[in-house]
Structure formats: structure tokens, C-alpha cells
């Protein structure tokens, strides 16, 4: 896994100060993680992604339910700085609609006469109101073009919705479903895995059979079958909750297995014996002594499982089995890419792919760095 790792480890000739020797386990891990350049870069990318998602309604010029029927399938608008050699600051040209003389398809072209400067921190159009974090009503948007100019950074879709806004608003779902799903997975996996590992005996046997059954199901088809059972009339918020539950229902056995085997190996350690003899009750033994001793591995495991959850959500929504329009997620946006005309004429609609790809890759690299860091004494 040590991708791009240098051949000779520079670990030994590093100056080790007192701080190094007195550092706690977590301190050592942080130290080692920071050395993994790719993992640090990925973490940075992910922080930006999540911040963008949290402030999504502010950054996106359009809300989820806004559209502009006049600008259907519009190419990404280029942002200019110079007009006829003169610097005017960021602006876009106005747009006019023409018909292609050969194909008769409507085309949106720049009107070179009209300059619409880009204003920042503006009040949006009516319809763009939102509640930040579901609490604070606002209509403040990061940028807007003056004089009715239109900025479609990533173009528009077949209903005239701004793809840039949709990508950002979609990330609110595509990036948070996996996290919530992961947390559920952790709860299920930890609870079930520790039951099996701690008690052993018939409980262990039953749980192991259960794990085997769930693992026998191919992941994606099982996800498909379960989410096909979600009634089509449900509200997006309910679908969101059900999706997280479905995703975690399928993914807990992996974690439960890891937890179980860790429990079995840690049960024989001396410090557990010592705690037991000192009279620590079972619950305390598990939560205070056993779980913390392999917590770092669980964190690594969970980070590594997020990519598959992102892919899961995107795939299901892409197939029309998960969230549906007007609710937006990256998978919903990608539904349009599976049409021939998209690939032939409207290739900017493939842009959401880049974000799915980047976030999956970033989580992979971050997990990689965490795994290397998880064992700081090595």
C-alpha cells in the first residue's frame, strides 16, 4: 500500500527531541500522519469539500428548486478578466440564443457587447432563499453577475438548472450519507462484534453465522434490492435516512469481524487480566480497556469503508433506486450522463464524475496515511 513511499526510510536520522520520547500514542500517530504527504493533501481536499458542503447554499448561486427554462443545456460560461485588452475585473458576457444553421439545435453564445461584472456577497434572486443549517433564514450568495447576466460555471442541465449549484448542493447529500452510514456501521459493528468476541460460545457461533449470511450477499445487488423497496412517495429526508440504514446494514459485518478477532486476541493480554482481577465489571472492561486498545484500527477501517459507501450512494441514485430529483446528489446528477446525447453534445454534464472520483480517491489516500500512522511503535 505504501504508494510513493521513498526507498530508504529517513526515520532513523531524524532528530528525536525529548518531545518525541514523551509524546502520547495519539501524538505519535499525528506526527507520523503528517509525514504522509499524499494523506495530508487528501485531508486538505476533504476539509475543503466538507466546508463547501456545509456552506453550500451560500456558495451555490441557485437553490435546488430554481431553474431557468431559457437556458437549457447551456455550456459552462467562461469568466473573463479583460475586455478588448482592458482589465475590468472578473466578468461574464451576456448571452443570446441562436440556432445552429445546420443542426437547428438551440445554442447559447456570448454577446460580446454586453459586460456583466461579477458581484460578491449579494442578495440572491427570489426563490434562492435558504435556511443555513436549517436554522438561519438567508438569501446571501457568494457571487452573482450584474445586469441579469448568467454565470453557469459548469453549464446547465436539460431543465436549465445550474450544474455548479447542483454539484455543491448534491455534495451535501453525497458526502454526508456515507458519514452517517459509517457511524451507524460503527455502532452496529462494534456492538455485535464485541458481543461475539467478548462472550464467545454459542453467541459467537450465532453471530458468526449471521455475518456469513450477510457477507454471502453480493453488496451492490443487495443494496439495489433493498432500496428498490423504498416507496417512491417518500420525502427526500426519509429516503436519506433509509439509505444510510441500508448502506450500513450491508457493511457492518466487515467491521464486526475485525472487532471480534481483535477482542479475542486482546482478551488474553495481561492488562485485561489485571483489570479483571482488580474487579472491573464487564461493561467497563469493554469500554475502558478493550475498545481503546484497538480504536485506531477501527478508525482506519472506517475511513477505508467510506469510499465504498460514497460509491454505493452514487450508484444507487444513478440507477434511480436512491434519491430522486428534485433532491440532489452526485448520483442523481450523473443520471443524465447515461444518455447518448450527453456524451455526444453536452459533455460538461460529466463534471460531477470528477467530484465523485476526487472524494473517493482522497478518502482512500487519507485512510492509507491513517493506516501507516495507526501503529506508531513500528
Amino acid at each position: 500500500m505504501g504508494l510513493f513511499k521513498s526507498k530508504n526510510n529517513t526515520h532513523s536520522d531524524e532528530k528525536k527531541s525529548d518531545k518525541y520520547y514523551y509524546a502520547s500514542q495519539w501524538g505519535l500517530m499525528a506526527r507520523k500522519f503528517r509525514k504522509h504527504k499524499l494523506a495530508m493533501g487528501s485531508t486538505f481536499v476533504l476539509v475543503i469539500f466538507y466546508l463547501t458542503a456545509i456552506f453550500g447554499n451560500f456558495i451555490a448561486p441557485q437553490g435546488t428548486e430554481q431553474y431557468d427554462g431559457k437556458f437549457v443545456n447551456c455550456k459552462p460560461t467562461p469568466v473573463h478578466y479583460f475586455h478588448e485588452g482592458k482589465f475590468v475585473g472578473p466578468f461574464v458576457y451576456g448571452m443570446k440564443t441562436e440556432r445552429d444553421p445546420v443542426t437547428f439545435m438551440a445554442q447559447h453564445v456570448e454577446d460580446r457587447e454586453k459586460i456583466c461584472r461579477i458581484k460578491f456577497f449579494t442578495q440572491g434572486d427570489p426563490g434562492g432563499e435558504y435556511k443555513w443549517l436549517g436554522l438561519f433564514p438567508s438569501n446571501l450568495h457568494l457571487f452573482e453577475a450584474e445586469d441579469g447576466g448568467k454565470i453557469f460555471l459548469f453549464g446547465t442541465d436539460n431543465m436549465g438548472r445550474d450544474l455548479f449549484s447542483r454539484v455543491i448542493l448534491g455534495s451535501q447529500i453525497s458526502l454526508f450519507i456515507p458519514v452517517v452510514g459509517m457511524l451507524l456501521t460503527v455502532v452496529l459493528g462494534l456492538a455485535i462484534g464485541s458481543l461475539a468476541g467478548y462472550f464467545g460460545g454459542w453467541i459467537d457461533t450465532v453471530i458468526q453465522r449471521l455475518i456469513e449470511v450477510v457477507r454471502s450477499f453480493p453488496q451492490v445487488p443487495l443494496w439495489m434490492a433493498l432500496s428498490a423497496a423504498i416507496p417512491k412517495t417518500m420525502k427526500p429526508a426519509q429516503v436519506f435516512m433509509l439509505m444510510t440504514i441500508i448502506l450500513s446494514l450491508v457493511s457492518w459485518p466487515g467491521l464486526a469481524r475485525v472487532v471480534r478477532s481483535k477482542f479475542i486476541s486482546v482478551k488474553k493480554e495481561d492488562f485485561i487480566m489485571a483489570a479483571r482481577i482488580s474487579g472491573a465489571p464487564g461493561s467497563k472492561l469493554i469500554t475502558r480497556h478493550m475498545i481503546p486498545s484497538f480504536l485506531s484500527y477501527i478508525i482506519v477501517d472506517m475511513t477505508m469503508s467510506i469510499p465504498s459507501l460514497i460509491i454505493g450512494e452514487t450508484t444507487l441514485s444513478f440507477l434511480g433506486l436512491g434519491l430522486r430529483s428534485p433532491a440532489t446528489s452526485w448520483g442523481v446528477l450523473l443520471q443524465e450522463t447515461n444518455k447518448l446525447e450527453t456524451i455526444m453534445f453536452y459533455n460538461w454534464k460529466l463534471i460531477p464524475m470528477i467530484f465523485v472520483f476526487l472524494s473517493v480517491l482522497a478518502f482512500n489516500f487519507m485512510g492509507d496515511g491513517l493506516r501507516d500512522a495507526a501503529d506508531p511503535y513500528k
Partner: protein
Amino acid sequence: MTKFIIKKLLIMTLTVFLISLAVFFIITLPPGDFMTNYVGRMLAAGERVNQEEIDALRRTYALDQPFFVQFWSWFSRIILKGDFGYSFSLSMPVTAVIKAYIGPTMALSITTMIFTYLIAIPVGIYSAVHQYSFGDYLFTTVCFLGQAVPNFLMAILLMFIAFRMTGDTMLGLFSPKYQNAPWSWEKVLDLLKHCIIPVLVIGLNNTCGLIRTMRSQMLDELNKNYVMTGKAKGMKAAAIRYKYCVRAAVNPIASSIGWSLVNIFTGTTITAIVLNLPSMGTVMYNALINQDMYLAGSWLFLMAIATVIGTFISDVLLAWLDPRARKEYLKG
């Protein structure tokens, strides 16, 4: 060895039973039984619906009975008669649907599998022998990326690239020109051309995983003492590598054949939907969209069974190749 296999087989039977229970539970998940769905569809098509006929059908499938009776009626029909129920969206027995599509699905899976191993093993060996060379870094990077891209994105991306390069998106298994044409040399070539993208997409994930396993296994072997001994005795490096190291390193790969086949088998699902291939994946997808639960459930059931069998084959192969694993299992 016999004891090992018998123990595994017994557990397998239990697992299969539990799986079928889970599958049947999923089948009955959507609100209303599938008869309501069927009746709704008939009404929408403007057909007259006869209440007596519906009741008769309900009785055949035991829909008026409690869950476990329904389950038993479904399960026993599969076990005793090989009858998977009736597909309402396609108006034919599920068994007939499966028979019609299993061929192309298997053909695609096996082609991909052969391709996977043909690429993965040599590349893995090359990467290990030339560790930290340009080629090694290249393959490692490609593999990492290959494992990160979701299957369906890869399919769309390749479709896009194919369209840009050839002006054809390569959907389906044949060009429209050859769809109904009799078999000819050109038609075979056309089929092969259309197979490139599916095989690439389905195989990529697995190939990448295999390359990485092969590389690390091979590296382990190359650092063992017997290699040094061979060298000291004057053997050629190539002879040591290919006569001894490769043979030892290929063991775990060989024993993972069962899992690989299952991976590929299920990997075809999404890819087939995106690329519009005539495989079981597309059929299952349409069944799910139409809530034709008997068809969808049967497919899910078959795939789970395939996984169980694949795991069994892998376990047996591993136990056969490595006596330590066998002993470990019988003890614990």
C-alpha cells in the same frame, strides 16, 4: 480432508437456508403483495380483472397465508421443482428468464476472468522483480486509480472516450447492423469489439487487486533464503524466479479463484445496466424498477448461492494447497 469438506458442506447448507429466508424477506418488503401490483398493471393496461382469478393465483402462491407459510411454499417449490415463481413484468416463468440470460452473463464473466488472470499475474511478477522501477510505479499508480473509480463511472468514461475516438459509443453487444444478421466473420469481430469496454470495466477492479497481491507475494518469495541458496549454487536468476518463486507466489491467487469469479459475476450487474448488455444484471434492474420481486429475488438468491459456492471452492483449494489452513480450521 474429507472431514474438512463435510464440515464445510454442513455449514453451507445452513447458510443457504438462512440466505433464502433473507431473500424472501426482501421480496415481501415493498408495500402490498405482488398481486396488488399485478392487478394495478392489468387495470392500467385497460384489462378487465376477474376477482376469482386473482384469488386463485393468491392461493397458488399462498399469499393469504402468514409469512413463514408463504416462505415455505416459495422455498419448497425452488428446492423440489426448480420453480422460481412467475415474472409478472415479462409474463413468463422466472426459470425461463434465467435460462435465456445466463449464457451471455456466464460468457462475459468467464472472458473477463481469463483476461484478469492473463494480465494480473505477469504484471504482478514484473512489478515485483523490477521493484521501484518506472514500470512498477506506473502499474502501482494505475492500480490505485483503477480501484478508486466506481465501475459505472468507468463505463461512462470509456463510452465517452470510445465515442470521441471512433464515433460509436459501443453500447450493447452488437452494432445495429449485425444485430439480426446471421453469424459471420464480421459479426464475430463486431462482438469482440463490443466486448472490450465491458471486459475492461468489469475486470479492472479485480485485476488491480490481483496485481497488488501477486506483487507482494512475489516480493515475499524473492527475499526468502532459498533464493540465496539457489544463487550461491550458481542457478540462473530467471530459473529461480520462474521455477520456484512464481510457483510459490501463485498459490494464494489460485485459491482466490472462487471469490474472483463471484466478484466478476456481480460486477457485471452495474456495468451491464450502464452499457445495456443482455445480461442478468439488466434483467434484475428492470425487475426491481417494476417491483417484479420474484424475478429480482431469484437473481439475488442465485448470486448469493454463487458466492457461497465460490467461497467453498476457495476454502477447499486453500486447504488442499496449504495443510496448515486445514488443521487450523478443524481445530477451531
